[in-house]
C-alpha cells in the first residue's frame, strides 16, 4: 500500500530511478532518529494495541477504496471521483477520539477515512460511487463523497463549501440545551475557511462555548489556489483566539499526534470547556477531483516530495517498529481490505439503479 505515480497524477515514466532508493534511505533515517520518540508516543497515547491496529485497518481500507475509485473512473464506471488520499491519519486519528453513533460528524468531501472510522462500510460507499439504489448516503441522488449516514450520525453534506460548519454549531447548541453528552465535529479544507459561513459558525460556537470541534484539513491547495493566496497566516488555528476557541495546529500525517489533540478537544467539549479549532496539516496526493490535473499547477518536485508524506506508510513503520505489526500481519490487513473492496465493487455493480421516476419522491414529507 505504498504510493504510486498514478495516484499522484504523475506519469510513471517520469519517476526518476533514484527516487525509490532515496525513499528507502529517508524512511530508514527517520525511523532511526525518532525511534525513542515514537515509542514514547505510542505509550502515552493511551490507545490499546487493538485500537491501534483497528485504526491502521481503517486507514488501509479507506485508501484501498479510494484507489479503486480512480480505477473505476478510468474504466468509465465511476463518473466522478474526489479523493481523501493523504488525509487518512488526520481523519482516523480524530475519529479514534470520538464515540461513533453518539458524537456527530458533519463532514466534507474528503472525509472517506473519517466516515469509515465512524462506521460506514466499503459497500455503503461503493453504492454511491455506482449510483445504486441502496446507497445510504443519498439513494444515489448526490455525487459520491457527499457523505451522509444516519446510523453513524454522519450528517448529509452538500457541495457548497462551509455551510456545514454552521450546522455543526446548531447541532452542538441543541446538545447543550438538551443536556446531551455529545460532541459535534465538522471538517473543511483550508480553502473553505475563507468563507463567511466558516466565520459565522465558529463565532457562534465561541459565543456559547459549544461542544464543537472544527478540523481544518489543510492540504495547501483549494483546487489550484495555494495556501499563501488563501490566508495571511501559516496556520488557520491562529484565528481560534479571535473566536474564543482553543486552537491547535497538528501534523496531520502523524496519527498519534492528531489523536492526542482531538482527545484534549473532546475532553474540553464534554466538560463544558468550549469549542476547539484544529488545523491539521496534510498532503493532498491526488488532483482535486477526477476533473482536475494537478500537474498544471504543482511543481514536479513538490509532487514527488509527497511520496515521503504518506501517513499510512508512516503509521505502518511505527507499528512495525513497535512490534505491534509484522510483515505477515500487514499483508493480511492489506489482503482483507482488498477483499472487502472487491466484494463491495461486485455487490454495488450488480445492484439496481434507482427507478428513473423515483426522483420526484421525497421532496416533502
Amino acid at each position, binding site marked *: 500500500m505504498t504510493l504510486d505515480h498514478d495516484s499522484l497524477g504523475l506519469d510513471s515514466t517520469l519517476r526518476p530511478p533514484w527516487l525509490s532508493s532515496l525513499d528507502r534511505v529517508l524512511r530508514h533515517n527517520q525511523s532511526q532518529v525518532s525511534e525513542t520518540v515514537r515509542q514514547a508516543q505510542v505509550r502515552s497515547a493511551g490507545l490499546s494495541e487493538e485500537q491501534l491496529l483497528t485504526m491502521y485497518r481503517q486507514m488501509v481500507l479507506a485508501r484501498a477504496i479510494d484507489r479503486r475509485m480512480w480505477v473505476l473512473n478510468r474504466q468509465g464506471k465511476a463518473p466522478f471521483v474526489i479523493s481523501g488520499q493523504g488525509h487518512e491519519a488526520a481523519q482516523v486519528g480524530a475519529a479514534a477520539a470520538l464515540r461513533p453513533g453518539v458524537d456527530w460528524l458533519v463532514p466534507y468531501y474528503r472525509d472517506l477515512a473519517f466516515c469509515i472510522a465512524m462506521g460506514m462500510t466499503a459497500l455503503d460507499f461503493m453504492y454511491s460511487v455506482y449510483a445504486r439504489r441502496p446507497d445510504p448516503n443519498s439513494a444515489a441522488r448526490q455525487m459520491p463523497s457527499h457523505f*451522509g449516514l444516519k446510523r453513524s450520525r454522519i*450528517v*448529509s453534506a452538500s*457541495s457548497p463549501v462551509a*455551510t456545514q460548519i*454552521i450546522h455543526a454549531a446548531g447541532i452542538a447548541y441543541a446538545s447543550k440545551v438538551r443536556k446531551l453528552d455529545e460532541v459535534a465535529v465538522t471538517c473543511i479544507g483550508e480553502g473553505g475557511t475563507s468563507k463567511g*459561513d466558516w466565520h459565522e459558525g465558529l463565532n*457562534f460556537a465561541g459565543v456559547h462555548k459549544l461542544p464543537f470541534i472544527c478540523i481544518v484539513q489543510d492540504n495547501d491547495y483549494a483546487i489550484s489556489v495555494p495556501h499563501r493566496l488563501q490566508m495571511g497566516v501559516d496556520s488557520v488555528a491562529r484565528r481560534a483566539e479571535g473566536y474564543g476557541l482553543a486552537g491547535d495546529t497538528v501534523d496531520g500525517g502523524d496519527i498519534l499526534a492528531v489523536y492526542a489533540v482531538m482527545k484534549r478537544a473532546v475532553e474540553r467539549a464534554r466538560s463544558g470547556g468550549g469549542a476547539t479549532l484544529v488545523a491539521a496539516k496534510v498532503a493532498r496526493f491526488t488532483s482535486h477531483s477526477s476533473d482536475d490535473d494537478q500537474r498544471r499547477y504543482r511543481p514536479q518536485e513538490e509532487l514527488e516530495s509527497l511520496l515521503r508524506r504518506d501517513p499510512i506508510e508512516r503509521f505502518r513503520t511505527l507499528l512495525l517498529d513497535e512490534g505491534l505489526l509484522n510483515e505477515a500481519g500487514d499483508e493480511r490487513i492489506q489482503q482483507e481490505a482488498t477483499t472487502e473492496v472487491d466484494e463491495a465493487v461486485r455487490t454495488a455493480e450488480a445492484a439496481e439503479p434507482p427507478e428513473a421516476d423515483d426522483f420526484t419522491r421525497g*421532496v416533502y414529507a
Partner: protein
Amino acid sequence: MAVATLIEGVRQAMDEEMARDERVWVLGEDVGKKGGVFLATEGLYAKYGEARVLDTPLAESCIVGVAIGSAINGLVPVAEIQFADFIHPAFDQIVSEAARMRYRSNGDFTCPIVVRAPWGGGVHGGLYHSQSVEAFYAHVPGLKVVMPSTPEDAKGLLKSAIRDPDPVMFFEHKKTYRLIKGEIPEGEYTTPIGPAAIRRQGGKLSCFAWGLMMHYSLEAAEAVAAEGIDVEVVDLRTLKPLDTETIVASVKKTGKAMVVHEDNLTGGFGAEISAVVAEHAFEYLDGPVLRVCAPDVPAMPFNKPQEDAFMPNPAKIAEAMRKLADY
C-alpha cells in the same frame, strides 16, 4: 373572539407552540429582551428564558444554519430574519441546505424549521426595508412559502408552520402588523398550509393577491362594486404549495383574472399565477390576465411621492379592475 392585530397573532402562535412543545425555540437578532424590533416575540424571553429565545450574532446565514443544525438534533426552531431585505446572505443555507436536506438524504435527515421575516413596503423603509422576496423562495422545491394577511391566519398558519415537518418560509407584511386588526378565535386552532381563501365572492373577474395587497384589492373591489363590477378576491395565503384548484375554479366562474403584488413585475409570482390560469383555464378566459405590480426598478424609494408611485394601491388596482371588466 377577541379582536387583535396581525402581529399579536404571530406572537400568540409562538407563545402557544413553545408552551405546548419544549423543543420549539426562537432565534434571531433582538428577539430576546427587546422582543424583536417589531415586538413579535415580546414576552417570550421572560417566559421561556434565554436558551429558548436566543439573541443571535448579527449574521443571517448563522441564524438559518444554526436553525438547521438544531433541527437535525431534535429541536424545532423558529428563526427570525429582522427584515426580509436582509435574508439574502442566508439564501445558500435556505436553498442549498434546508430545502434539499430531506431530498438529498432520502429522508434520513429532515429540516423542520420556520424562517419568519417581515417584508413589504409602504412604510418609508426605502430600498432595504421594503422588499418583497417571495418569488425567490416560491421558486425552490423543498420549501413552503406562507404569506398570511389576517390576524387569524397569521396565528393559525404559523402554528401549522411550526408543526410542519419541512422548512417553511413565513413572510409577514410589516405594514399589516398593526394596520390590520381582526378576530382571533378563542382556544386551540391551526390553519392548514395550502388552501387559499376567497375573501369576497364575485362573478365578474377574479383578483389574486396576498399580504397588504389583498387588503388593497378588497378596498378596490368595494370601490368598483358601486359601478356594477363584481370582483372575486382570492387571498392565496400560501404561494407554495399553491392552491391551483381554487385559482382555476374562480377563473372558470368569472372568465377574467388579475394578480396584484408589490414585487416588481418581471419574474414576480404573478407570472406563475398567469401561467397557471393560461394552462388550466384558457378556454374560459374572456380577457387577458392582468398584473398590477411594482415597476422594474431596483427597489422602493424612501421619499413619499416615489414610494407611492412604486406601490400598487387601491386606486391603481381599481383602475385595472375597470379595464379588465370592460375588455
